[in-house]
């Protein structure tokens, strides 16, 4: 199975109880991966309030995932 590098920020890091993770998964898209993680960690935020980055670039939720991809789900930002 493909191995995905995950990094969690802000409340996602608290809810997952970790900042990084290497996860083996058979899901095909970023959207499906987030669904899998919501089931695993109980993430509160719905995907329509978030964005997704693959290999440090914003991508659509339909983005396919490959072995070794680095994926970050982006909660609403609050910098500035």
């Amino acid at each position: 199975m493909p191995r995905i590098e995950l990094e969690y920020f802000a409340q996602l890091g608290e809810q997952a109880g970790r900042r990084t993770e290497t996860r083996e998964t058979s899901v095909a898209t970023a959207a499906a991966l987030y669904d899998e993680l919501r089931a695993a960690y109980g993430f509160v935020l719905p995907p329509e309030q978030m964005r997704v980055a693959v290999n440090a670039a914003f991508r659509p939720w339909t983005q396919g995932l490959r072995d070794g991809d680095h994926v970050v789900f982006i909660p609403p930002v609050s910098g500035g």
Partner: protein
Amino acid sequence: MNRFLIADAPVDIAALREALLKPEAGGFCTFEGWVRQTNEGRAVSGIQYQAFAPLASSEGQTILDEALARFEITATRAMHRTGYLPVGDIAVWIGVAAPHRDAAFRACRYIIDEIKTRVPVWKREHYVGGCAEWVACHHVG
């Protein structure tokens, strides 16, 4: 050279300003965001900023490039801090030099507004008394 800096320690603001001194610029506008002592009525002791640094830097750079394309400006730089900042520290700094003041003001305002909605930085407010929480106050499009 990336003109949008994600910094985990205090930055020499005077050096950022120096880099924008161009003889063709007549107006210079800056915006600084400071850690405030209260937010929505709660006493804040400090704020922890967390950034997804590679994307924050590239998205910030994209915003500066957009400002250069949209407004008649000469040069612009910006900086966002990460880590724990006590009340009064500079969390964000933006500088814009332009031939005329209208473009300098408008571009500076554009950049801070876009940073607040698009750049992957999150703040965790620490309150006087000990508790802390992640803030989710800006809308993401």
